């Protein structure tokens, strides 16, 4: 999937890193010789760590040559790239424990990574660190159909859990769009959502227990199979912590019964504000739809040729509104929802009459990102969340910004929970287009904060939204986040430099906003 570009700052770092790695390539790890003293200090460090890791990991589980580490240089946010010093691919919890102890002893930063589908750069490697891939820990350990739980390793794919539970008529509810690829460990790190989370909750509502290791390799367990684990609810902190508090080695999730049936309403609106009001009207009527998604006209026109979903291309907005449950319940709810939508000035209503038709309605929404990738050389996906009542207002404001940045920005979003995904279409071969896309994105996020919302609903802060964290939170709160980080990881070695901006960075960002200058890539902290 083409998404974005590589910035000048990142390229600069990459060149430096490449030089260092090339210097390493000529020599395999071996006892130090006089010639090596001329190598950069990081290379010596790299060599000794590789040797120490290979004492307990197979050779192909420790990567350090550029051609081997290159695939790990970024996650789903390709805007930021960085080669790690080393990539480790353990297969057991014990190996992870030994890796962490070693890194702790040598003060080497560790960046955990699942499938690398994250969209905010949470899994961006550290230049002097070890990238800890959990992809090989991919076994479903047990499914307890009676207790409705599944215990899995962190590298198990989200969808694989539901597939394995299907024969018990159970499934794992959170369904991020990347569910065929993303892993449960990554979902825990990001507190992933999906199109059904309005009714069935986010990752934090569906994970019962996380087993993990602290940054110094101590085994810890958060939550549990029995409700209300004693003490503070540390599980609430670990979910969504972007791999900064502990390394997840095992997850127990809650499974829910599969609904007997589901039907979807596709409603058209002549005005985007009216579509927003219709969402509020549904909620006001006491309905919590199983899914409630919206596409603006630009997005419908973008996806329709690609997905043939049958969207009304003349409508200013298309609303998808799903009901699930028993056939009687769904019939009752579809009738109520249709009445509310018509009263809220829907210009056209179509109810799915078969499972194939329901899936066709969803095909457009679910294919929005690939369609954007086809329509434009690159796109930049934003993730702000706003109070639902501001939907129309924010969408109109985004439309009004399009001429300012000379870029198109179709919108798809989880209307039920106010989570926007504006897709800024730009040309990654044109540095000016890139700069405009970045500034456009930043302005959208600022707008979300001003509207009482948040800069990220489900994609995480990572490195992408560090600057906007300065807008959303005051320094005391940011310091409290640092305090939480320090309580779990006193040495500060787990995924350093993510999520919490430094005081210096916020000061810089404040100045840049004042001067309206382009945001530069800050130097990552060095160890």
């Amino acid at each position: 999937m083409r998404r974005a570009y590589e910035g000048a700052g990142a390229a600069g770092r990459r060149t430096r890193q490449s030089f260092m790695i090339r210097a390493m390539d000529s020599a395999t790890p071996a006892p130090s010789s006089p010639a090596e003293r001329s190598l950069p200090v990081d290379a010596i460090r790299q060599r000794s760590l590789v040797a120490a890791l290979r004492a307990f990991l197979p050779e192909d589980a420790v990567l350090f040559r550029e051609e081997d580490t290159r695939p790990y240089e970024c996650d789903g946010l390709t805007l930021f790239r960085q080669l790690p010093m080393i990539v480790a691919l353990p297969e057991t919890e014990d190996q992870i424990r030994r890796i962490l102890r070693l890194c702790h002893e040598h003060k080497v930063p560790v960046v955990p990574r699942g499938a690398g589908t994250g969209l905010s750069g949470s899994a961006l490697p550290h230049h002097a660190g070890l990238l800890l891939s959990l992809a090989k820990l991919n076994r479903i350990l047990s499914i307890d159909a009676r207790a409705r739980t599944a215990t899995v390793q962190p590298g198990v794919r989200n969808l694989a859990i539901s597939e394995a539970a299907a024969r018990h008529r159970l499934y794992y509810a959170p369904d991020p769009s990347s569910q065929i690829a993303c892993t449960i460990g990554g979902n825990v790190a990001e507190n992933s959502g999906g199109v059904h989370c309005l009714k069935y909750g986010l990752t934090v509502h569906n994970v019962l227990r996380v087993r993990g290791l602290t940054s110094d390799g101590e085994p810890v367990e958060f939550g549990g199979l029995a409700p209300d684990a004693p003490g503070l609810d540390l599980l609430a902190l670990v979910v969504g912590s972007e791999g900064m508090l502990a390394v997840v080695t095992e997850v127990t999730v809650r499974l829910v019964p599969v609904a007997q049936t589901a039907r979807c309403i596709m409603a058209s609106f002549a005005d985007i504000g009216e579509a927003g009001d219709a969402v509020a009207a549904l909620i006001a009527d006491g309905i919590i739809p199983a899914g409630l998604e919206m596409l603006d006209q630009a997005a419908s026109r973008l996806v329709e040729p690609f997905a043939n979903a049958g969207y009304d291309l003349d409508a200013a907005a298309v609303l998808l509104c799903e009901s699930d449950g028993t056939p009687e319940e769904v019939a009752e709810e579809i009738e109520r929802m249709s009445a509310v939508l018509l009263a809220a000035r829907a210009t056209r209503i179509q109810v799915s009459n078969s499972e194939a038709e329901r899936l066709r309605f969803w095909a457009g929404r679910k294919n929005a990102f690939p369609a954007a990738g086809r329509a434009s050389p690159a796109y930049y996906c934003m993730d702000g969340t706003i109070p639902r009542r501001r939907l129309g207002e924010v969408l109109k404001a985004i439309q009004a910004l399009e001429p300012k940045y000379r870029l198109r920005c179709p919108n798809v979003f989880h209307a039920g929970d106010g989570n926007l995904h504006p897709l800024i279409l730009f040309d990654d071969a044109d540095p000016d287009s890139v700069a405009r896309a970045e500034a456009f994105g930043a302005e959208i996020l600022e707008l979300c904060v001003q509207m009482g919302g948040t800069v990220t609903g489900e994609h995480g802060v990572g490195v992408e939204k560090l600057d906007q964290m300065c807008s959303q939170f005051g320094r005391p709160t940011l310091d409290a986040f640092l305090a939480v980080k320090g309580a779990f990881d006193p040495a500060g070695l787990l995924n350093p430099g993510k999520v919490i901006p430094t005081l210096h960075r916020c000061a810089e960002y404040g100045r840049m906003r004042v001067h309206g200058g382009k945001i530069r890539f800050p130097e990552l902290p060095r160890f």
Partner: protein
Amino acid sequence: MDQALSQLCETVRAASESRTPLLIRAGGTKDFYGNTAEGTLLDPRRVAGIVDYEPTELVVTARAGTSLSELEQLLTENGQMLAFEPPHFGANATIGGCIAAGLSGPRRVSFGPTYGGVRDFVLGARLVDGRGELLSFGGTVMKNVAGYDVSRLLAGSMGILGVIAEVSIKVLPRPISHHTLCFEMPEVAAVYKLNEWAGRPLPLSASVWYDGALYLRLAGASAAVSAARLQLGGEDFDNRQADAFWTSIREQTHPFFDGDAPLWRISVPSTAPVLSIDEPSLIEWNGSLRWLRTNRSAEQVRECARQAGGHATLFRGGDRSAGAFTPLTPPIAAIHRRLKTQFDPANIFNRGRLYPDL
């Protein structure tokens, strides 16, 4: 910042400077819960009132000292509710105390959007930390992954990290229809059946087993409730009586809770077998919450809970010398101590209420 709030921050700052321990207490309805803490009384009830409530946003923001009854009354008037059905344990309960205690009621283990405990519905919070600084966490939107989820951490924190000043809570529509069924069956069969039913898409909203009878509350769309009644059988319970019954479970005014025998709250996986201590018990949450009346030692009760895969809290009465809550493992206890030191460096808030060294 208004006067009540800035005064609260000032009081905390002064206590922090003089290292005066504070006992945070509003209505005092949950004084019985947890370990005993000592300190100068800090009553946050002047920090009260609804800050924002827009029913279509499914969020209410209230100051911590807001009366829980008034808040629930407001939601009821708008056809909404706190889905976690919190116990009040007295007329003076406040929303701040409700969050700090983190206790949820019968609906905690239900099907669909109402599933979850206090922490599952906390969206944001403002907290006065041990430096007297006002911190804001989370927000008022359904989805928010900006920064660590400290607002959920406050649910059940027993006031050890700071004074909760304000909370934003996700609220939900009241179910259109509800109905309670009653079945005669022994404990083993009840736990078995509850787990079987919970694995089917039934509109289960609460369950209680006591003294040979299983009570099941269904709630949701009328069609779903009627279909489930047909499927499940059982005897119908008059709706008005049923409301009183569920309130008596939530508020612990049911006869099971009478008398002086220590009351233990045993959390276990829902499929756990009958507890090895054969004393009067009442079961909630599809089998995962088992109340026990027993004079056995804390050691015996905790061992019994451990064997069942869970943990035990001495909820009311009894000898608290072994602590009200199950002790933590060393690495988890270390994280607790560091969190406490970070949020409350002078160690002034509710000393010992959760654990002796916190």
